[in-house]
C-alpha cells in the first residue's frame, strides 16, 4: 500500500496531454483512417441505433393503421416506402422494425458473451473432469445446425400453454395500448428470441473463451496470485477476466452481424417476434415474398436493410478484430 501512496498521482499524467475526450476523438479518427470500412460499419450501427431509439417519432403513421384505399401503392410523397397489401405505411413499419434488429442483435451478443465466458471460463479454469464433461456438452451444443435448433426452441418456448417458465405465451398482450410503438410490447416473445439466439451463439463462443483461458493460465502471475492465497473466484475475476476482455469484445463484435442475420432468418420463417409487431425478416416474408411480384419495393426495401446492416456490422467486427488482436486475422 505504501508504494501506491508514493506514486505520482494520475492527474499529473492527464494534465500533461490533451483532455481525455480529445484523445478519444483522435483515436476514433485514427481508426477511421486505418479502417475506412470499419468506420462505415460503425456509422451504420450508430445510425440504426438512433433510428431505433427515435422510431416512434420518425414513423409517419401508426405502424398498424390500415389505409385500405391506398393499398399496394409504390413509393411516393405520402408513403415514402409505399404501402403493403392492407395499406400500412411501409416506411413506418420499417422504422419501427429497426427496434427488433437493434435490441435482438445487441441483446443476443450480450447474452452470448455472458454465457460463453461463464461456460468457457469455468471449463478452462477448473480443467480436469469438469472440463471433460463441459466439452462433451458443448460438442452436443454445436453438433446441430443452428437453424434447426432455433426453430425447435422458438416453437417449443412460444406455444403450448405458457411454455417454458411461462415465457412463451402465444401472441403478446399489450402492456398498455399506447406502448404499442415500442418493442416492450412484445416483451415475452423478444426475450425468448434473444435467449434462444444467445444460447446458440454461446456454444461456439465457449470454445474460444476456453482456449484463451487455458493460455492465460500458463502465465507466471497466476502462480504468484495462487501462492499469495487468492481464492479461485478472485483469480478468475481479477486476473483471468481482464486478460480475456479484448477477446470477448472481439467475439461480440464479430457475432453482431451474424446475430442480426439469424434474427432476420427466424423472423422470415415465421418463428421470430410475431405480428402485428413488424420485423424486417417478417416484412420480407409476409409482404415481400407474397406480394413481391409486381410490387418490387416490398421485397427490395427490407432485404436491402438487412443486407446493409449485416454487411456493415461484419465490416465493423473484422476491423475491430484486426485493431484489437492482429493474431486472429485471416481464417474464415
Amino acid at each position, binding site marked *: 500500500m505504501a508504494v501506491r501512496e508514493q506514486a505520482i498521482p494520475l492527474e499529473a499524467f492527464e494534465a500533461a496531454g490533451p483532455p481525455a475526450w480529445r484523445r478519444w476523438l483522435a483515436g476514433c479518427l485514427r481508426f477511421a483512417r486505418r479502417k475506412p470500412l470499419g468506420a462505415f460499419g460503425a456509422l451504420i450501427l450508430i445510425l440504426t441505433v438512433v433510428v431505433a431509439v427515435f422510431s416512434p417519432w420518425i414513423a409517419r403513421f401508426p405502424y398498424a393503421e390500415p389505409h385500405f384505399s391506398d393499398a399496394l401503392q409504390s413509393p411516393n410523397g405520402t408513403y415514402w416506402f409505399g404501402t403493403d397489401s392492407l395499406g400500412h405505411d411501409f416506411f413506418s413499419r420499417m422504422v419501427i422494425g429497426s427496434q427488433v434488429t437493434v435490441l435482438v442483435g445487441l441483446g443476443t451478443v450480450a447474452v452470448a458473451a455472458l454465457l460463453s465466458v461463464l461456460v468457457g471460463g469455468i471449463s478452462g479454469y477448473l480443467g480436469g473432469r469438469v472440463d471433460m464433461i463441459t466439452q462433451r456438452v458443448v460438442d452436443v451444443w454445436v453438433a446441430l445446425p443452428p437453424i434447426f435448433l432455433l426453430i425447435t426452441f422458438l416453437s417449443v418456448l412460444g406455444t403450448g*400453454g405458457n411454455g*417454458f417458465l411461462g415465457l412463451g405465451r402465444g401472441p403478446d398482450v399489450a402492456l398498455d395500448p399506447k406502448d404499442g410503438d415500442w418493442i416492450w410490447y412484445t416483451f415475452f416473445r423478444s426475450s425468448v428470441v434473444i435467449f434462444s439466439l444467445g444460447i446458440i451463439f454461446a456454444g461456439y463462443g465457449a470454445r474460444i473463451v476456453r482456449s484463451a483461458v487455458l493460455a492465460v493460465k500458463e502465465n507466471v502471475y497466476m502462480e504468484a496470485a495462487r501462492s499469495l492465497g487468492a481464492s479461485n473466484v478472485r483469480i478468475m475475476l481479477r486476473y483471468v477476466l481482464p486478460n480475456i476482455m479484448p477477446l470477448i469484445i472481439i467475439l461480440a463484435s464479430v457475432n453482431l452481424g451474424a446475430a442480426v442475420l439469424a434474427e432476420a432468418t427466424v423472423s422470415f420463417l415465421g418463428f421470430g417476434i410475431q405480428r402485428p409487431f413488424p420485423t424486417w425478416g417478417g416484412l420480407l*416474408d409476409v409482404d415481400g415474398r407474397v406480394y*413481391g411480384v409486381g410490387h418490387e419495393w416490398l421485397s427490395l426495401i427490407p432485404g436491402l436493410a438487412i443486407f446493409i446492416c449485416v*454487411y456493415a456490422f461484419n465490416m465493423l467486427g473484422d476491423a475491430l478484430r484486426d485493431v484489437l488482436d492482429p493474431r486472429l486475422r485471416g*481464417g474464415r
Partner: protein
Amino acid sequence: MRQYFIRRALLVVPTVLGVTLLITFLLQILEGNIADLIYAESATFNQELTKEQIEDDLGVNDELLGSRSLGIFVQWGEWMGGVAQGDFGEYFRSRRSVGGELENRIPVTLELAGLALFFSLIIALPTGVISAIRQDTLVDHTARSFSIFMLALPSFWLGTMYFVVVGRWDDWGLPQSIGDWLLPPSIYKDVWQDPEANFRQMWAPAMILGFALAGSVMRLTRSQMLEVLRQDYVRTAWSKGLRERTVVTRHAIKNAFIPVFSLIGVQITILVSGSVVLERIFGLPGLGLMLIEAVTQREYVAVQGVLLVVAAFVVITNFLVDMVYSLLDPRIRYA
C-alpha cells in the same frame, strides 16, 4: 493412425446420443397440457385418436424410480430402442410412420445440398486461385469484394428476389421454353421419376445456396494459395523455368486445396441450415420443410426424427472429413 481413428470414432457416439437426449428434454419441458392441446386440435383430422395415445406417444406419464421428471429417460430409452430397430414412431394425427416420411425427405435435402456444394466449388475454386496468382490486380479486388458481398447477402432475400424478378418472365417477352426453366410448376418431381423436371426445380435454389457458400470457400482458397505460393518448393519450381500453368496446377494447387477440403465439414452445417430457408421459399419437400411443418403442427415425434437424422448426418460428415483430412495431411495425426 488407427488410434486416432478410434479416438475420434468414440466421440461420435456420445455426441449423437447427447443430441437425442437434449431434444427429448427440450420437448419435455413443455407444460403438461400439451397432450390436451394436440388432442383438441386433432379432432378434425382423426376422430379415433384418444388422449391416452397422445400421452403415450409423448411419454408424459412415464415414471422412473417413482419420479415423473426422471421419466424422460424412460421415454428416451423407448424412443431410442425403436430408432435402433428402424422405427421412428408415428405422426399423432395421421398415424403415418415418421421413418417413411424421413425416407421421402432425405433425398431431396441431400440433392439440394450436393448440387449447392457443386455450384459453390465450381464458382469459388477457380476464382480463389486466379485471385491469388493475380494478387492486388483488378481481378483480385473484384473477386474479393464479390466474396465479401456473398457472405452478407442473405439467401432468403436472394430467393425472394428470384421470384420477384423471374415471376414476370411473361412481361419481358421470354419464350415459354425459357419460362419453364425459370418458373417450373411447384409440384415436386422426384429425380428418378423425371430427372429433367426435377433439375428445373432444383437448379435455382441450389445456385442461391451455392452462392452463400462460395464467399467463404473463395476467401480460404485465396489465402491458402497465397501461402503456398510463398513456399520454397514453389520458388524452386519457378527457378527451374517451369511455365506458370505447371507451377500453379502441379505444385501449388494440391497443397492449397487440403485446408479448403476441411472447410467442407463446416460447410455441411451451413448447407443444411440454408436448405431450410430455400426449401421453404421454393416449396421443396425436404427435411427443413418437414421440420417447419412438424413444429407448427406440434408433431413432436416427427421433430425428434428430423433432428436426430440431421445431427447424425452433420456429426458423421465431420468425422469423415477429419479422417480424410488426416490421410491427406499427415501432420494432423500427430498434433
